[in-house]
């Protein structure tokens, strides 16, 4: 059985609130399916399953705020999935320094996948299990993956399941009690009211059909909700210690605009303060002639419908991604006092939100994407970031970040690195400037490129190589 845990959606996240479950026990899920909406200090995020299988139970109730690493749901993995290498439980890329964690989690580079050693008998293709047996196993809470079949060809029989259930009972008897399981059905209206009133839905007794929670139940539960201010998750043994999370209200669901703006500033503040405290930044800058790139772009766009046109920022992003691949010392993470290079280029993109604040989702494998694809990914990310529909995986695995302030009218930007990344590239506005070319002064479009990089991981020489690489790439736009 797999445990679906509260993911760290960025280095600045200590805890999250379950806003919505999109699955219920018994539902089939596939790796990558969005199964929950999690509220962080910055935004509501669609979170995907790391596993393929059947949802066994939802452990964390709607409206509950729990620390990163807390079990949210349990999923019985399907046989095919078990034989495949499993992703490790999501780990924060690195604990924020201000958190007094007794033992520093062994933070592997987020992209590294641990190969799980699968016993030979489990690696065999599974013998089909009848729906009836499956149902019985589900009723008894038995993980079929762990049941040894005694039927023909190793098929799992009803007796096997019941024996396993009995064994499990004995195990449970000696283990500490597991946290209460919330399997509550809640009407959408009740859910919204609960969020507004800060009521923990897990503490509400439902009077609707099948014990489902109705709006009236929520309103009745207001005093009870206040009394039970300690998050249930505090009782979960594996929960990572997170003192800050314990101080948060039990149900901090859907934040209001003002609260969101404040928590956004606080989250950015903590992360950036940590960056400046821990990362010795060095900076390099360069001015790049954009004549060839813009001419090429203009020529290309001339033949295209508006919806297919590219903006200059796409060329800059592609160049930044390709250069990161050529200069791998800037693409990766500083973890456990050493640099750990990433094996792909996932380009984090700083997206400013209307109304303040920013998010930095990643475009996966940006160096490999054709320009048109990169353009549509960028448009899609901006739209979803502003609508609060980003996916968890997009917020966790950027390997280098780019900020493009060209549209805001400034010539250059020297950024603050997102830990545990080690570099942040900046692009300013494309402006016309007098430039000397071949002994003559001409007016040409230029852009100032900058790099802020972590001096622990590289030296300014490396940073200079990166910016030179970007400049070279932008002189050959047809190869981007």
């Amino acid at each position, binding site marked *: 059985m797999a445990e679906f845990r509260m993911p760290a959606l960025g280095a600045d996240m200590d805890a999250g609130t379950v806003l919505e479950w999109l699955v219920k026990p018994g539902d089939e899920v596939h790796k990558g399916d969005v199964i929950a909406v999690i509220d962080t200090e910055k935004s509501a995020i669609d979170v995907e399953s790391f596993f393929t299988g059947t949802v066994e139970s939802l452990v964390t109730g709607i409206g509950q705020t729990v620390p990163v690493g807390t079990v949210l749901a349990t999923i019985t993995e399907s046989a095919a999935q078990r034989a495949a290498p499993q992703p490790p439980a999501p780990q924060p890329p690195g604990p924020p320094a201000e958190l007094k964690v007794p033992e520093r989690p062994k933070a592997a580079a987020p992209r590294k996948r641990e190969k799980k050693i699968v016993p030979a008998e489990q690696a065999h293709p599974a013998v089909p299990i009848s729906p009836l047996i499956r149902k019985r196993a589900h009723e008894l809470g038995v993980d079929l993956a762990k049941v040894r079949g005694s039927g023909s060809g190793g098929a799992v029989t009803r007796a096997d399941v019941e024996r396993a259930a009995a064994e499990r009972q004995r195990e449970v008897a000696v283990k500490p009690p597991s946290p209460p399981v919330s399997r509550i059905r809640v009407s959408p209206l009740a859910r919204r009211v609960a969020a507004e009133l800060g009521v923990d839905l897990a503490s509400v007794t439902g009077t609707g059909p099948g014990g489902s929670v109705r709006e009236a139940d929520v309103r009745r539960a207001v005093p009870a909700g206040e009394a039970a201010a300690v998050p249930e998750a505090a009782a979960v043994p594996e929960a990572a210690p997170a003192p800050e999370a314990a101080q948060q209200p039990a149900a901090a669901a859907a934040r209001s605009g003002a609260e969101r703006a404040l928590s956004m500033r606080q989250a950015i503040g903590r992360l950036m303060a940590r960056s400046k405290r821990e990362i010795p930044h060095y900076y390099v800058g360069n001015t790049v002639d954009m004549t060839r790139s813009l001419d090429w772009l203009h020529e290309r766009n*001339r033949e295209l419908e508006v919806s297919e046109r590219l903006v200059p920022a796409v060329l800059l992003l592609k160049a930044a991604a390709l250069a990161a691949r050529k200069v791998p010392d800037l693409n990766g993470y500083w973890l456990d006092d050493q640099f750990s290079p990433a094996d792909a280029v996932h380009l984090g993109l700083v997206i400013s939100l209307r*109304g303040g604040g920013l998010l930095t989702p990643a475009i996966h494998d940006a160096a490999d994407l054709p320009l048109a694809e990169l353009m549509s990914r960028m448009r899609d990310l901006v739209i979803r970031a502003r609508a609060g529909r980003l996916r968890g995986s997009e917020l966790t695995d950027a390997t280098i970040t780019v900020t493009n302030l060209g*549209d*805001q009218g400034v010539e250059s930007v020297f950024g603050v690195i997102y830990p545990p990344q080690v570099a942040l590239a900046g692009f300013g506005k494309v402006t016309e400037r007098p430039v000397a070319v071949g002994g003559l002064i001409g007016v040409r479009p230029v852009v100032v490129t900058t790099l802020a990089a972590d001096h622990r991981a590289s030296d300014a020489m490396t940073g200079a190589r990166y910016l030179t690489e970007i400049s070279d790439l932008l002189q050959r736009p047809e190869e981007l």
Partner: protein
Amino acid sequence: MTPDQAQHAIEEALAQVAPDVDIADLTPDTDLRDGLGLDSLDFLRFVEILSERSGKQIAEDDYPHLATPASAAKFLAGR
């Protein structure tokens, strides 16, 4: 497009691209990119919507005509 239709199309396009902008605050000479803070992607979407609404081909070379609501209305209404 009549000037009225053009004005209407511009306001609708802005409402979609920058929902937080109060159309009432908009003057005919507000610079859409700098004044309203539309970035290049927002602006592209704005052009896209106007092109769909008016049925008019809008080339990159025409972008300067779309700098303000007044100039855009004039452009869409056929100059």
